[in-house]
């Protein structure tokens, strides 16, 4: 009988507590720094080009083969402004295929690829699967706008 009263007081107690749910599409919870959405490319603001040299390390390591990378000679290296001899030409990632395993980030020799840790990386629904294949500019956009929060101390 005492347990009955205890149970009633517990539910009455939770009634006056703040709800834990939030109104998701209009309110967002803070994403953790090491949140692992889809991979994106990083932009080197010192020499104004991408960190990525198109070395195919991530493409070869990718378990689901969602990446396509091509490489070209770096025009800035010929001018002498950049130390990178080669630079990426085209870079495609099929977000519909990517399984967000983080392997590409781990194998990258130049820290040129990172996992998207913003809400943008989670709200990508489209009506066409083709729209999930990201090209170079789309992959670099977030980094160019400096919206990626670095969690590795650089």
């Amino acid at each position, binding site marked *: 009988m005492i347990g009955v009263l205890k149970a009633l007081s517990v539910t009455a107690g*939770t009634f006056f507590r703040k709800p834990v749910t939030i109104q998701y599409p209009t309110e967002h919870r803070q994403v953790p720094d090491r949140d692992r959405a889809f991979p994106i490319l990083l932009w080197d603001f010192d020499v104004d080009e991408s960190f990525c040299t198109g070395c195919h390390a991530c493409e070869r390591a990718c378990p689901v083969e969602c990446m396509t990378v091509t490489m070209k000679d770096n025009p800035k290296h010929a001018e002498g402004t950049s130390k990178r001899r080669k630079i990426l030409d085209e870079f495609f990632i099929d977000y519909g295929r990517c399984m967000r395993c983080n392997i590409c980030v781990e194998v990258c020799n130049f820290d040129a690829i990172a996992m998207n840790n913003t809400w943008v990386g989670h709200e990508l629904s489209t009506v066409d699967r083709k729209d999930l294949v990201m090209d170079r500019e789309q992959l670099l956009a977030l980094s160019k706008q400096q919206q990626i929060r670095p969690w590795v101390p650089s």
Partner: protein
Amino acid sequence: MWGIFGVNMNVWLDAFLRLQLIVLTMTVTVMALIYIERKFLGKIQQRLGPMRTGPFGTLQSVADALKLVSKEDLRPATADRWLFELAPFLTFVPTFMILMTIPFMQDWGVRNLTLGLFYIIAVSGVSVIGYIMAGWASDNKYALLGAARSAAQLISYEIPLVLAVLAVAMVAGTLNIESIILQQDVIPNIILQPLPFFILITALLAELSRRPFDIPIGESELVGGPWVEYSGMRWSIIFALTEYAGLWGMSALTAMVFLGGWQFPFGTASFWGDFDFLYQLLLIFVKSFALILMVMWISATFPRLRIDQLMAFCWKVLLPFGFVQIMINGIVLNYVSDSEVLRNILLFATSSALLVAMCYVVYRATRQPSREERLRRLVMARSTAE
């Protein structure tokens, strides 16, 4: 003679207008209750409840009603056609008939029956047939199981309900709800008869198949009981109208029989002023709403009972104590008729003593041995086995 709000008119027209008023109020109340219950449950479970339709989700019930009305009314191919289609109405009509004798204000109900309580008890027993009809006609094993369970439960709990109401009727000396309310201007019946109030609340939960007693519905085991195969309009009649109108009607009835209905509590009517009909409406609203919230609170708290626990609680606890209460009431009312104060004190004392005794019986029945005791018994059992 007859007439709504003092306007003279034909008897039939008057009855029709009153019925229309009840139907309108019932629909609005049901929609409000669904919204309130969803919000209340949400708060208790640390959720928000409906938030998207309208400001703070207030239009959710309207949206639900629109969706249910426009949904296709499916009927299984093997179902018994007429039974299947008539069953929802057979559960709804008794609930609606209860509302017709409830006096919501002084001298204002659809009809004031001299045997009002008797009528309500008689009519509310009919809804079992609707459950069984729905369960049988659906041609579905879950529906049939649910129907069997609801028949067992509703019929069993009808008896404590009757006993509780009868105890109050003995004290009041009448079965007319209006006179019962009028007698409670100083002392509401809950003080004179706490045990029947407790029995009535328990039986009411069971009659409405609400959570601690929802084995006929049992979503997790019977996927909705007798109503598995229903959809659309028919389902909304069952679910929304029957369940919530029943909750409203029974809460209003309990408020009238035990809490003094539209009377101010403890004889403070002269302090508050004239017996205005607005005061009466407000009082009956507050009292029945408090009861409804209590029912929702209880059903949000307790898990479903097993069927044997349910039956044992009814037949071994509520029923004997109800009979004992009626016996004591009879003795008190018969032998202590000259002094009303002494009579009231005796009624209060015996009934609360019985309530304490009942709590003790339940406590003894549900008590678990302590951990040490259980270990000791285990060790003893093992040593004797060897």
